[in-house]
Structures are given as structure tokens and as C-alpha cells.
């Protein structure tokens, strides 16, 4: 219990600092933010109205607390270009990103788990060398290039799968899944490489420990030893990497969504950057950071489930 309380308390200063950094974003714009957003041709009335809307006519500390008060009540401001609440824009875009994140993660796991286990169990054999080199290669492939390659192969040359045309799962599950295969493949391959490397090195740390030798000496076969004893003890770094991966994907599928025309959260940020809709950029960035903080918190709490020594304050 103390572990959970302590971890929750540690999150508070991070959240405060994240809010200050996000708030500062608009104030980092060189010159007058309202002038930059509206351009030089804006009328004095429009200029003044935007300054008032953004609260730029108040002292900076007052601006922060007023903004923070609104954020806490779920108000992230009004989009400058679309004139709708930013929170609505985000909540419209998040489901596609969440679906893409889950699909990518599942795809990464399906490849990384067997490859990582095989590489560790068959250490220094061709299986290990091949999968390790493939993983290093996978980590080096730019996502957006891989996305183009899969589009050329699966869509342009063979017409097997669509490269765009996202529809929500609730409207047409089949079309939705078909549209999600290529984006998940293009993003998941790289993520599987990262996971596989982490799993392999983590398994190698555990595989030579005394309890594993004891299990083998007692006659347990290799599969049962690895799956029943080694894997669980090697999971903490893998869970950490998975957590960071999910957090990064939730806020960072910017390019995949752009290439496959998926109306997701990442694409919203890119569109807002180009439209100079700083209020939306600010709100979206705050949400992406909050997602990372929450996922990291959940991962830390998951440690306690995987390794009870942590909950008892005896573990790492």
C-alpha cells in the first residue's frame, strides 16, 4: 500500500511541471502570440479579441492559474481555426489512435515473444544471431519508409489491402480491421524489434540463476522452465519497455496516421501545427503527456503485481 501511495505522490510534481511546460508553449512563440497567430493583416479588434480569449492581457501567473482552473474542469480552450472545444477534437480523434496502439502492440508482442525467447534459449547459435541482427535492422528502419514499402507491395502492386479509408470499428468492423492491418504492420515491426532485444537480454540475465538450475536439476523440461520460471522473473524490464512503448505510441503515431490518412490524435497535432492552431497544439500536447504519466504510473503499479518483493519494499 505504501508503495502505491508513494508512487501516486511522486506523480503530483511531475503533473504540475508538465502543466507549466505546456502552458509556456504559447509564450515561447517569438513576439506577440496573438499577432503571430492572426498575422499582420488582422484588424485591431480581432487582435484584441484573441488576446482576451487567450488571457494574454493578464499577468502571467494569473494566466497560468486561470488556464489551469479551466484544464482541471476539462476545458482545454477553443480551437482557433475550427472554433470547437479542443477537448471535443481530441475525444473524436483518440479512439482511432487507441485502436492503432493496441493493434501495433499486439503485433509487436506476437513477433517479439517467440523471437526473444528463442534467441535467449538458443544463445550464440544461428537462431540468436539471425533474430538479433533482424531486430537491430528492425530498429533502424524509418517507420514512414516501411509504411511506404508496405503500401507499394500490398496496395499498389497487389491490391490486397487498403492503404487508407479508415472507418470506425462501430460502423463497419470488417472495413476497419482491413484498414488497420497495414498501419499496425508498419509500426509494429519496429516496436517488435525493441521488445525482442529487451526480452532477450532480460531472459539471459535470469536464465543462469540458481533457481533455474535447480528447476532443471529437478527434471523440469526446457519449455516448462522457461515459461514457468524464467519468463516471469524476466518480465520487469519487458513491462517497462512495453509501458514506454504504449505511452509513446499513444502520443506519437504522428507519421503512421499521416501516411495512412487515419484521423487520429497524432494527425490532429500535425494538422494543428500547420494551421498554427496553438490552442489545439497546447491541449493535445498536454493530453499526450498526461497519457504518458498515467501509463507509466500503471506500469509501476503492475510491477507490484508481477514481483511481490517490490510491494513489500524489498525489490528493485
Amino acid at each position: 500500500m505504501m508503495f502505491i501511495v508513494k508512487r501516486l505522490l511522486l506523480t503530483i510534481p511531475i503533473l504540475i511541471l508538465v502543466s507549466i511546460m505546456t502552458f509556456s508553449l504559447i509564450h515561447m512563440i517569438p513576439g506577440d502570440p496573438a499577432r503571430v497567430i492572426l498575422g499582420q493583416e488582422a484588424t485591431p479588434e480581432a487582435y484584441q479579441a484573441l488576446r482576451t480569449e487567450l488571457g494574454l492581457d493578464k499577468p502571467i501567473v494569473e494566466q497560468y492559474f486561470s488556464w489551469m482552473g479551466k484544464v482541471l474542469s476539462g476545458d482545454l480552450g477553443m480551437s482557433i481555426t475550427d472554433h470547437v472545444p479542443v477537448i471535443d477534437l481530441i475525444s473524436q480523434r483518440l479512439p482511432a489512435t487507441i485502436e492503432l496502439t493496441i493493434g501495433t502492440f499486439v503485433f509487436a508482442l506476437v513477433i517479439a515473444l517467440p523471437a526473444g525467447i528463442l534467441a535467449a534459449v538458443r544463445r550464440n547459435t544461428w537462431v540468436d544471431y539471425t533474430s538479433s541482427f533482424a531486430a537491430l535492422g528492425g530498429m533502424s528502419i524509418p517507420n514512414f519508409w516501411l509504411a511506404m514499402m508496405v503500401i507499394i507491395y500490398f496496395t499498389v502492386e497487389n491490391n490486397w489491402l487498403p492503404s487508407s479509408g479508415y472507418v470506425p470499428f462501430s460502423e463497419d468492423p470488417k472495413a476497419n480491421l482491413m484498414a488497420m492491418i497495414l498501419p499496425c504492420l508498419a509500426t509494429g515491426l519496429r516496436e517488435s524489434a525493441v521488445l525482442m532485444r529487451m526480452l532477450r537480454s532480460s531472459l539471459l540475465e535470469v536464465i543462469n540463476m540458481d533457481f533455474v538450475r535447480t528447476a532443471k536439476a529437478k527434471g523440469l523440461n526446457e519449455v516448462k522452465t522457461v515459461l514457468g520460471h524464467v519468463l516471469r522473473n524476466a518480465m520487469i524490464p519487458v513491462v517497462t519497455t512495453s509501458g514506454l512503448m504504449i505511452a509513446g505510441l499513444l502520443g506519437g503515431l504522428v507519421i503512421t496516421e499521416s501516411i495512412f490518412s487515419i484521423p487520429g490524435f497524432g494527425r490532429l497535432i500535425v494538422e494543428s501545427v500547420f494551421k498554427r492552431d496553438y490552442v489545439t497544439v497546447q491541449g493535445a500536447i498536454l493530453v499526450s503527456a498526461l497519457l504518458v504519466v498515467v501509463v507509466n504510473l500503471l506500469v509501476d503499479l503492475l510491477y507490484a503485481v508481477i514481483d511481490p518483493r517490490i510491494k513489500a519494499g524489498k525489490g528493485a
Partner: protein
Amino acid sequence: MKSVLKFFRTGLGLIGAIIILALVLTAALAPVIAPYDPNAQNYEKILQEPNAEHYFGTDDLGRDIFSRVVYGAQVSIKAAIISVGIAMLIGIPIGLFTGYYRGFWDEWVVMRVIDALQAFPFLILALAISAVLGSGFGNAMLAIGIGFAPAFVRITRGQVLTLRNMEYVHAAKSVGVKDMRIIFGHILPNAMGPIIIQSTLAMATGILAEASLSYLGLGVQPPTPSWGSMLNQAQTLMSVAPYATYYPGLAIFVVVLGFNLLGDGLQQFLDPKTRK
């Protein structure tokens, strides 16, 4: 010299080093290697498939893709050096001082700011900074450098926390050596191993990040050839000229692989657990 030879014997490091050397030579000798001006448009030769005259073909403006890929190496190498350089300039001193002096500033200010900065997904942070400062190569480098800095703070600080308790540091203190001299003369040289590994791996990510920002239109601006922006332009040609997407992406892949191999090789060489 012996240790350099030993490092190259790891194989991985050698392959990585050869790739990076090839990148540096390509960037330096681009005017000699490239058969055409990378920005010269030739409307009589648009969208030509790879042939003896244009090894990688031409794009929709008739520009020679091979020449553009060769010149693109200059952007990538600059991106790797400048972005990681900025991150090191910010991260290493902060890591050194906070790790050495510790206390309130270390625990409650610097490390919590680092935690908060790391809460922002890397590309989103780079996008946000580029959005505020404006697009362009310089701002993209600044954005990527700021994004990388927290990792350097953590690595340096972690090293200093161990090294500050070493006997040679206590000995230096006891004979009255000044803190600055201990930090920069004794601790920093001994902390460099993991920092070098981190910088090599960060260069790989830096090249990817520059390419990503340029792909999104926030990095290098046309007509300067950058592998990321070339992919952006080639994306619209995927159905008529797929070859236009092959080579810039392949170049990014090979170079990033080179830095990753070098980083892995260094890690194996410097880590006592994996060093044979």
C-alpha cells in the same frame, strides 16, 4: 591501440564504423560523387526509371535522385552531430553538477523537470518546439537536441553518483583539489564510456528524427535535398514511380543501422559483463 583493435574485432562495431565512414566520405565528397546538380530540373527527363545515366532514376521535376541522395548525406551527418551536440552541451554539465552536489536542486528541481520533459513523447515535443519556433533545419535541430538532453542528464548523473564515491575522488578532495577540477578532470573522463555509447545511439535517433520532421515538412525545406523531405515528395509518386521512395529510405536505414551497430559494438566492448 590494443583496445581499439579489440573493439573492431567485435565485428559489429567494425561494420558500423565502416558505414559511418562511408557516410562521412559521401557527405564530404558529394560534389565529386554526384554526377548532377541535386537541384537541377530537367523537364525532358521526368520520372525516368533507374538507368545507366541516372542510377536511381529521376523525380517528377527531372532531378537526379542519386545526386540528391548523395547530397542528402550532408544533411544527415549535420543532423546527427548538431542535435546530439546540443543535447550533450545541455545534458552533460547538468548531469555532472547535479550528480556531484546532489541536494534539493538535484532531487526536487532538476530531476523532476527531467521527469516532466520525458513525459512528452519525443516526436511530439520536437513537433511542438518546431511549431513554436518555426520550421527549418536549425529549429528542428534545437527541438531534437532539447528532446535528447534528458537522457544525457540521466546517464551522466548516474555515472557521477557512482564515481563521486570512488577513492581517487576522495583522495583528490583530501589534498585540496578544487571541485571544478575534480568534476572535469577526474569524474568526466571516467564517465565518458556510457556517454559515448548514448551519443552514438542518439545520433541514430537524431537522423531518424530529422528525417521524420523533414518528412512532415518541419525540417529541411525544399529544394535542399534531405532524405526525409525526398520521401515526402516521393510519397505522392508511389503508384507511378515507386523507385523514388526506395533509395532515400534505404539510405536512412543503412546509416541508422551503422550508428546502431557502432553503439552496440561499443556497448559490448565497454560493458564488463559482455566484454570477453
